[in-house]
């Protein structure tokens, strides 16, 4: 598993306070996701592209991830033109391609890529730990923040435990096929992983209690919401207003 590939860097966006990035991202993504015009969707995509460039993310990795997203978007290009009712562009026997379906698939592709780029530039440039602390300071319920932080910390451990069980099964000649034995074995593996995680959670809680944990995380890092954060938020709000303006002009 590879996480946080974009989290560490020295660009302007990496240094910005996570709260500023999170709030800006949330607003921009919501507007982009709700837009219905090509102009707004294309502007959003452009904005995302600009921010990714500003974050100086490694282009190869960005492209690799975009390809992954577009593999899902590709399914829409297969299904929407065939199933969406509208003006028929051309027919092939019982199958017909609709203009509206094609347009809709195009719009969704633009929006999906735009949203993805925005999240990559604004959220992925923070570490999960920073994100957790930022959410806490934005008064997101503490339990949800802790859930995020701990899921991230222990997902590796849980995955290792699962792999270890799977290896133990393999060295005893377990070969997954399509039969009851395989299903049952995977059931056991998942079940055992769950139980182990539960016990792990209990031990972690105990270890935390012994070190004086009383339900609150105290961050080592002081909040720093300075001029650059305010400027960035203002610029993001400007962009958001621009998107809404483009949208209202054309619809």
């Amino acid at each position: 598993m590879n996480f946080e590939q974009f989290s560490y860097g020295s660009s302007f966006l990496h240094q910005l306070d996570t709260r500023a990035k999170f709030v800006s991202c949330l607003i921009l993504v919501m507007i982009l996701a709700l837009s219905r015009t090509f102009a707004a969707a294309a502007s959003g995509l452009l904005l995302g592209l600009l921010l990714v460039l500003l974050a100086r993310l490694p282009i190869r990795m960005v492209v690799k991830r975009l390809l992954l997203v577009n593999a899902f978007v590709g399914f829409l290009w297969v299904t929407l033109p065939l199933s969406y009712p509208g003006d028929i562009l051309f027919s092939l026997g019982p199958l017909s391609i609709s203009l509206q379906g094609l347009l809709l698939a195009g719009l969704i592709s633009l929006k999906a890529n735009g949203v993805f780029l925005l999240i990559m530039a604004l959220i992925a440039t923070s570490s999960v730990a920073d994100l957790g602390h930022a959410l806490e300071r934005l008064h997101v319920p503490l339990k949800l923040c802790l859930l995020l932080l701990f899921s991230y910390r222990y997902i590796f451990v849980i995955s290792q435990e699962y792999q270890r069980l799977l290896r133990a099964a393999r060295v005893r000649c377990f070969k997954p096929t399509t039969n009851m034995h395989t299903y049952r074995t995977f059931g056991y593996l998942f079940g055992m992983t769950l139980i182990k995680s539960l016990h792990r959670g209990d031990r972690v809680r105990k270890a935390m209690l012994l070190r004086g944990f009383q339900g609150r995380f105290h961050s080592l890092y002081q909040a720093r919401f300075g001029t650059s954060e305010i400027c960035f938020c203002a610029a993001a709000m400007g962009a958001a207003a621009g998107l809404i303006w483009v949208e209202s002009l054309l619809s």
Partner: protein
Amino acid sequence: MLAPPLIKVEDLSFYYSDESPPVLDSINLTLQHQQRLGLIGPNGCGKTTLFHCIMGLLKVRSGTIFFRGDKVEDKAGFQRLRREIGMLFQDADDQLFSPTVIEDVAFGPLNLGVAPDKARLVASDTLAELGLSHLENRVTHHLSGGEKKLVSLATILSMQPRALFLDEPTNNLDPRTRLRLIEITNKLELAFIIISHDYDFLAETCHDLASMEDGRVSPALKSSLHTHHHVHPHGAHPHKHGDH
């Protein structure tokens, strides 16, 4: 007047249910200031359970725990005790949950109400003392097993405890880290209770030994020096005598 022992346990018993046999069966144990006590015993004899009972993680069925002469019975009492006794868990992954090493080492001091700047300083100093400064900004789950063990020791030492409970500290450690742990343990001027099957480790770190079996603790007989002959089948990697 003599200071009361750091910890005194009287007739402590623990069992999971009334039908099951007791895991701990009226245990009596005393830990003096600066005393180093090794507890040796087979798997499942209740060693870890004993630690958890003293730290208040498990509720004892009967018996009393005294900390510095005072009876410990409520939450506040255990919290006072936990401030001064650090416990090292068997699995370091249970203990390291912060994203970076420095944050994890500062976690305890921050919980005790130390200001962030000061906590960071305490954490850096603790890591420096253990020779782990280079790990400060590393991500905890990417450390090696040995590094994890030493860092989790640092997370406890940063709370400046008076005593340490070590639960199987040498499990899965390579010989070098094990040696390092012996060195560190012997340098610390604290009281210790160390649970281990590793007799050699206990012999090098503890003055007193006790053995535990079927939920009971009994003082171990003094060890006697003896020699034995053995071959080194792995000729290319012989172990050195005197420092295994």
